């Protein structure tokens, strides 16, 4: 707590032959983060083919192709409703697989693909064929519709006569007639619709080239029709019938393919995940330093995993050389109690602390929940949040670690919203006093606005004081006593002095004023040393800035009154409806009551979250927190569709 976990930098030299085995084991265990090894420049490094990279990538392409082509033929499971997903989601299905090397994975995928692929491809080809038949027939039917009711072979070119049939724009017809006036042609025209007309142009073979040129100029679009000794109507009937049977066949084949996919889809997903894992191994392998027959693996290993890390290496290779040391540039692995781990998301959002620097998460966990509760402040809203959180924890959280963390966060927020709701006498706003029931509470934010504002300023002073003391301690720990005094001491003196001057009497008030004076002097001197006289003078404005930070906490009360005020309005309207409208008034009243309170909870819950974030990021963190660290990301094979039984 308060500091990140200890991480060791390990440098292991081992035989190149064992590298893949080691990577596989480390990937499965997820106990370390592999870092790019320093390359040895003086050695002429031999280029290794990395863990069957080419074969893996080719196999991945083949697999992806099949998955993409069959995506529409997968079984669509009816989606679970939001509530089921939340409370009782279906557990993910996982298939057991053996832990294999990249080469074996490629072989396995290829082998399975050779079995699955022909079955699927055969169906896919048939589907394409049938589809193209239907498409072609539809096209012919559309063309035939434009034709006059003569035998279609009438339009077929002969040895001496060239016949062009097609569609032109109605506006181009005059142009066409004009251009072919001198030529030896016969033109037949039938209007297709308002814009287009079907035409056929017959000419002798010797003139055909010139005519084609003219037709091209006017934007003639040639069409294909079947030439038969039958009328278009008859042919269309035949084609429509053909389409009907083809579509039936198509549906049957599609159903067969869906049947195949029902069996094979999960297998394909498992293969896809296996290939993804192979790719991750390749990326890790690229991080190693390779020289002749040896490789160097550098990794960050948390203290708690070091023994397992060593034993994993020992199991894979008998002979190796390892260096272990703690380094300052190590990534940060949070080390907090599971109950406050969800708040790490908020610290992370701002910036991850540097290795072994102060981690504000434990402090933030309390103050964030208090601020949120202060702003949403309602006993029943808190209970609702808590209820949702518990359902999420027991339902969705079972299979989704992210959701589990979020539900714990929500539980905290719910608990504090309820507790502060009691403090502020807010039980669905002022609903109970309105119906004549008095419930316990300490402060009513609506009628005791000044008290509530003063309370939020007291919270501000305590919160900022904690931040400043942490900052002072951190600077002092690093031996930066002047910075501790200039960056935090000033504000501590100002804060303590200000409080003493405001509420103290006699000597306390004088001491308070003295401390404020001291703070101003330190501020001037510190900034003079750091940045010269101009900045030093301007730095006096920071004092008003600090006061602004303190008063910014008054938003806690403003938002609390916001919640109470809207709740009051909802209760007022709902009860007015019940009083004023006979019989149905009670129904409308209940609707207003429920809808209004849900609206209030959602809107002000959002506001409470945002302003709690803001108070931490701007007012609180700026007093002491630097961040700028890098998060520890274990090299871990995340298996969603499959699992291995690894030793």
């Amino acid at each position, binding site marked *: 707590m308060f500091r990140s976990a200890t991480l060791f930098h390990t440098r292991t030299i081992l035989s190149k032959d064992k590298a893949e085995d080691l990577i596989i084991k480390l990937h499965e265990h997820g106990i370390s983060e592999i870092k790019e090894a320093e390359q040895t420049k003086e050695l002429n490094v031999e280029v290794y083919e990395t863990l069957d990279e080419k074969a893996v990538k080719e196999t991945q392409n083949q697999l992806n192709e099949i998955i993409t082509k069959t995506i529409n033929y997968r079984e669509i499971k009816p989606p679970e409703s939001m509530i089921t997903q939340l409370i009782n989601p279906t557990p993910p299905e996982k298939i057991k697989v053996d832990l294999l090397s990249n080469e074996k994975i490629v072989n396995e995928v290829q082998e399975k693909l050779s079995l699955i692929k022909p079955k699927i491809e055969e169906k896919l080809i048939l589907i394409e064929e049938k589809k193209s038949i239907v498409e072609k027939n539809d096209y012919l039917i559309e063309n035939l519709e434009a034709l006059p009711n003569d035998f279609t072979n009438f339009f077929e070119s002969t040895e001496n006569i060239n016949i062009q049939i097609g569609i032109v724009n109605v506006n181009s017809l005059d142009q066409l007639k004009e251009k072919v006036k001198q030529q030896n042609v016969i033109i037949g025209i039938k209007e297709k619709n308002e814009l287009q007309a079907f035409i056929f142009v017959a000419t002798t073979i010797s003139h055909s080239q010139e005519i084609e040129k003219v037709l091209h100029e006017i934007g003639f679009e040639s069409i294909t029709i079947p030439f038969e000794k039958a009328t278009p109507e008859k042919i269309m009937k035949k084609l429509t019938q053909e389409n009907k049977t083809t579509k039936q066949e198509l549906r049957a084949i599609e159903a067969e393919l869906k049947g195949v996919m029902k069996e094979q889809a999960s297998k394909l997903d498992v293969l896809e995940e296996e290939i993804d894992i192979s790719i991750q191994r390749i990326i890790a392998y690229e991080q190693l330093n390779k020289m002749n027959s040896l490789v160097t693996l550098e990794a960050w290993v948390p203290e708690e995993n070091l023994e397992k890390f060593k034993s994993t290496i020992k199991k894979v290779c008998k002979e190796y050389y390892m260096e272990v040391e703690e380094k300052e540039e190590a990534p940060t692995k949070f080390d907090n109690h599971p109950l406050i781990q969800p708040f790490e998301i908020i610290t992370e*959002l701002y910036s991850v602390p540097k290795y072994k620097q102060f981690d504000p998460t434990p402090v933030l966990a309390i103050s964030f929940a208090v601020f949120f509760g202060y702003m949403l402040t309602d006993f029943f809203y808190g209970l609702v949040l808590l209820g949702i959180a518990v359902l999420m924890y027991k339902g969705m959280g079972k299979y989704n670690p992210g959701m589990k963390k979020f539900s714990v966060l929500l539980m905290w927020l719910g608990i504090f919203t309820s507790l502060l709701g009691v403090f502020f006498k807010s039980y669905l706003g002022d609903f109970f006093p309105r119906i004549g029931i008095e419930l316990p509470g300490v402060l009513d934010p609506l009628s005791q606005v000044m008290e509530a504002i003063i309370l939020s300023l007291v919270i501000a002073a305590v919160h900022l004081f904690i931040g400043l003391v942490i900052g002072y301690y951190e600077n002092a720990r690093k031996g930066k006593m002047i910075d501790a005094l200039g960056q935090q001491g000033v504000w501590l003196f100002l804060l303590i002095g200000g409080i003493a001057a405001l509420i103290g009497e006699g000597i306390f008030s004088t001491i308070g004023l003295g401390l404020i004076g001291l703070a101003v002097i330190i501020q001037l001197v510190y900034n003079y040393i750091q940045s010269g006289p101009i900045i030093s003078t301007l730095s006096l404005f920071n004092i008003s800035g600090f006061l602004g930070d303190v008063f910014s906490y008054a938003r806690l*009360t403003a938002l609390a009154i916001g919640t109470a005020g809207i709740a009051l309005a909802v209760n007022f309207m709902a009860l007015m409806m019940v009083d004023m409208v006979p019989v149905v008034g009670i129904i409308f009243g209940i609707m207003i009551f429920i809808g209004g309170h849900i609206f209030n909870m959602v809107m002000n819950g959002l506001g409470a979250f*945002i*302003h709690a974030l803001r108070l931490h990021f701007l007012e609180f963190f700026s007093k002491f927190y630097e961040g700028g660290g890098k998060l520890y990301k274990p090299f871990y094979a995340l298996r969603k569709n499959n699992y291995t039984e690894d030793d």
Partner: protein
Amino acid sequence: MIEVTMGTAFAVTGAALALAGTGIATAIGVGAAGVSAAGAVAEDKENFKNAIVFQAMPQTQTIYGFITALFIIMGAGLLGEGANLSTEAGLVMLGAGLIVALTGISAIFQGQVSAAGIAASAKNPDAFVPGIVFCGQVETPAIFGFIAALIVLVVGLGVLG
């Protein structure tokens, strides 16, 4: 019917200003965010849940305006008790309404930041929470305006007391 005094007239004008001023600003802000939201959803429906949160941001100013208006109406005795509000008290309430109306203009600019936030988080989901915090910043004037109006109404005039 209660007797309407000059004070009541001023007070109701204050309530009208508080709610109308913040309401117009919110409408402009939510409108700007809505235009951006529609674009983002057209690109990818997944953006909907982020966009709706951003679009809701400029609505808080109207909540402040509404609560202020409600308090003024209560203070002016229009909710049943009936009180002969003095002209001076009415003017003070008008002033309180004006503070909230003017600081509520921040909703327009909050809407612009929301619109940018919607676009940014559509491109990069990690920009969602920072975007929300940026929006929260713009609300500060409205919050202080609301606090000041509350002090005037509740502490100064004893509206709820």
